């Protein structure tokens, strides 16, 4: 699916009562099946953008579109992973992962089977029946990732999906994600703070300015696909990383 | 007597302040209690609570109905009946004027309301039915709470067990104003016409009688004078009750008229009239007032006069064993008692002023 944004602005009410421009104006277009990574300083409106794209929040001005249709409300084609893991504390791991299927009316057996299939990939073996209160930070994040993956969405919105994961797990899971994305043909937009991760995964890296966040660089990562962790030692990889970092330093 | 020498004494009444309690108000307002050495305050409580507080000697005096005394004693409460206030049992059955119920026997098969299967109305009904060879099974009894005027006026029941000195007057007055549905007036079938049941009176406990008989005598005597005052001069009683009863109808005109009537009655009493003459004077007073005032405004005065009819007797305060036995028989019949009691211990006429066996 094509995701596009035109003259989008998000403005909040600041503590004092004044307007707080958080994002934009910003315009861009993401082609179907593209993988876009967004990097930018904390508080520059990345999560706000994601929320608008998910249909959770109305823009203050401008619009966002899914396949040229203005986004008015959440769409079933979109899967969103929140910045915090946002699990239901009264549901076990497996039931949290299976939630989207449950809401879609998939039978209990079927959805539990699908969730169980994801468990090893997420490294959550043995914790199927654990409650969120019994998980570590990183484990909770992996459950949240499982919950969005099980939906097989056409548009994947990921807000810092790997923030609480250690380097190794992170690398492994992000490569898994890459593979899933490639198989599914979904459009992916991911917020991350890890430049190397952004370059490894994305077709384009968006660099945002300080608040109100504006698009100050759109770096096309032309590394060939499929990519592997070895690619990170390529010269070209290093060049792209430097390119993104330079854009950030200018932010 | 000086105020500070008076003994504080609470007097327990049932229900809430009401013109019917004017003898008590008169005994206070006319100074009879103070002369007897008491500083009396009134507390209104449910009858069983009154009984329990007196029986446990938390309080010494109160007014309850006769059959309550029997049941309370049956339930182990050492209370003693001292002075009969209502000489006639105040309960009866009210029927609309245009009803075809004319006698008690006509009640058979009819739909009759009652506050509930307890208390004086239930006993009274049972006695009334029994005296005419009927039982509760012969009628269709419905518990309607203390809402007889409302229920009768909307046609909820064909007849209702009521207190003679209150509800029938209310219904009649509504009927008069055309606010009582099809009912145009009422008729009553009083229990007292068929059986003499012991009725409401002054009670204390055995401990007080044993330890302070003089105090008991003084208290009863003061109450007796209050009752006599009211019987003799209802207009004055109405006026003094204004301080005790919330919401008693009054207006400047009515006040002035009553004051005039009260003064006139004082003069009349000074001529030492006999009981019949006084009774007649009450009726003529009402007739005079009714020319000037609506029956709505006079309804509570009417309640008072109707009550006085039930209180008045040649010798106030005395009960005979027969009325106690009649009441006990009713209770046995209703299953509230399962064996007869030593009724002689339940009451005494010893403290009734002017009584000699």
């Amino acid at each position, binding site marked *: 699916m094509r995701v596009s944004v035109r003259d989008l602005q998000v403005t909040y009410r600041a503590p004092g009562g004044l307007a*707080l421009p958080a994002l934009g104006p910003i315009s861009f277009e993401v082609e179907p099946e593209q993988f876009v990574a967004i990097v930018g300083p904390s508080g520059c409106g990345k999560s706000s953008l994601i929320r608008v794209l998910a249909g959770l*929040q109305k823009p203050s001005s401008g619009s966002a579109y899914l396949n040229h249709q203005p986004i008015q409300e959440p769409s079933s084609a979109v899967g969103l992973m929140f910045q915090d893991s946002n699990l239901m504390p009264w549901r076990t791991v497996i039931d949290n992962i299976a939630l989207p299927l449950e809401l879609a009316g998939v039978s209990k057996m079927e959805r539990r089977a699908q969730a169980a299939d994801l468990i090893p990939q997420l490294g959550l073996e043995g914790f199927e029946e654990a409650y969120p209160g019994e998980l570590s930070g990183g484990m909770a994040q992996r459950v949240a990732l499982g919950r969005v993956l099980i939906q097989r969405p056409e548009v994947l919105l990921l807000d810092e999906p790997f923030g609480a994961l250690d380097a190794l797990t992170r690398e492994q899971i992000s490569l898994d994600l890459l593979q899933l994305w490639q198989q599914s043909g979904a459009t992916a937009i991911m917020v991350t703070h890890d430049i190397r991760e952004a370059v490894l995964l994305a077709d384009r890296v968006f660099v945002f300015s300080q608040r109100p966040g504006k698009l100050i660089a759109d770096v096309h990562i032309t590394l060939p696909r499929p990519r592997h962790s070895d690619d990170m030692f390529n010269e070209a990889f290093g060049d792209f990383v430097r390119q993104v970092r330079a854009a950030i330093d200018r932010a | 007597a000086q105020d500070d020498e008076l003994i504080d004494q609470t007097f327990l009444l049932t229900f809430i302040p009401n013109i019917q309690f004017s003898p008590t108000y008169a005994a206070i307002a006319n100074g009879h209690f103070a002369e007897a050495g008491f500083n009396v305050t009134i507390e209104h409580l449910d009858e069983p*609570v009154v009984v*329990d507080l007196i029986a446990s000697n938390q309080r010494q005096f109160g007014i309850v109905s006769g059959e309550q005394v029997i049941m309370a004693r049956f339930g182990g409460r050492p209370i003693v009946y001292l002075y009969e206030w209502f000489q006639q049992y105040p309960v009866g059955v009210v029927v609309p004027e245009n009803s075809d119920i004319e006698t008690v026997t006509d009640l058979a098969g009819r739909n009759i309301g009652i506050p509930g299967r307890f208390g004086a109305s239930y006993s009274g009904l049972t006695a009334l039915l029994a005296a005419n060879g009927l039982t509760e099974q012969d009628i269709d009894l419905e518990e309607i709470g203390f809402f007889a005027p409302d229920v009768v006026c909307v046609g909820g029941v064909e007849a209702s067990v009521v207190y003679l000195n209150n509800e029938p007057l209310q219904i009649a007055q509504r009927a008069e104003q055309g606010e009582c549905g099809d009912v145009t007036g009422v008729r009553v079938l009083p229990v007292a016409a068929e059986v003499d049941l012991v009725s409401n009176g002054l009670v204390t406990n055995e401990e007080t009688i044993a330890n302070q008989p003089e105090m008991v005598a003084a208290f009863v005597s003061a109450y007796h004078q209050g009752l006599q005052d009211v019987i003799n001069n209802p207009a004055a009683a109405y006026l003094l009750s204004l301080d005790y009863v919330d919401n008693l109808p009054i207006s400047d005109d009515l006040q002035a008229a009553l004051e005039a009537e009260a003064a006139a009655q004082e003069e009349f009493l000074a001529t030492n009239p006999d009981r019949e003459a006084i009774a007649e004077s009450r009726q003529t007073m009402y007739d005079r007032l009714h020319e000037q005032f609506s029956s709505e405004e006079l309804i509570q005065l009417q309640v008072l006069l109707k009550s006085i009819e039930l209180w008045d007797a040649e010798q106030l305060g005395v009960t005979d064993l027969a009325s106690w036995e009649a009441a006990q028989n009713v209770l046995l019949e209703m299953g509230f008692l399962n064996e007869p009691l030593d009724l002689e211990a339940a009451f005494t006429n010893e403290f009734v002023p002017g009584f000699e066996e």
Partner: protein
Amino acid sequence: MLANVLSYTLNKFISNEKYVLKPRRSVVRRYALIATPLTVLAVWHFITLLELFPVFIIPSPQAVGIKLIAVIQDGRLWLHMGVTLQEVLGGLFLGVSVGMILGYLIAHIPVLEDLLSPIIVAFQATPILAYAPLLVIWFGTGITGKMITGALVVFFPMLMNTIVGIRSVPENLRDLMRVSRASRWQLFAKLELPAAMPVLLTGLKTSATLAVIGAVVGEFVTANAGLGYWVKVARDSYDTPLVFVAVISLTVIALSLYGAVSLLERRLLAWQRRHRLVD
């Protein structure tokens, strides 16, 4: 105007929209506060106009108005309202304090719930009629007894809400207070109280409303003043307009208390309303 209010709310309900502009809401709410009393009055008027009920069951608003003016003029209204208000406030204070303290203890010592709940529940299920003599013996027939009955009614919802409120304080914030070495009092004042505030305020709203009926029940046992006593007097003298005046006065007390707690709620929970978009 009512149609406006309704269509607005329906829209709001259906649109599933999270961010609402504040000013618009306030206006609607201001209308709402007078809309209901006016509607009730209108319905009442029509009921009596159509004579759906006899006037001695539902008197006309005019009759009640006349009676109201009369009792205001002769000062009886203030007398009885004052007495009841005193009882209500006393009962509320007593019941809420005991309920909160006990609830706090139970929330922290679960076994206390097992030990005390039989007694507490038993008390709630026992009609006052059954212990009226004890009530009079212990507290007399004055104002104290009514405060006690009021407190008894108020106590239970407050207790239960305190328990659930304190128990639902997030465990991780408790940890924060522990590492910050908060004293038990600080734990209560700085964490438990604000965190449980929404539930506590709900308990207080419930309690404030029920305190009125609690005092009235006490006045039914024994009283010589107060609005509950007045209801009894008025019913006894078949003065239905006066019954209505007394009931309306009770309602006014209850609504004032409810309104006061609602205002408190608006102030104390202001932070919850700070998540709004500006255009």
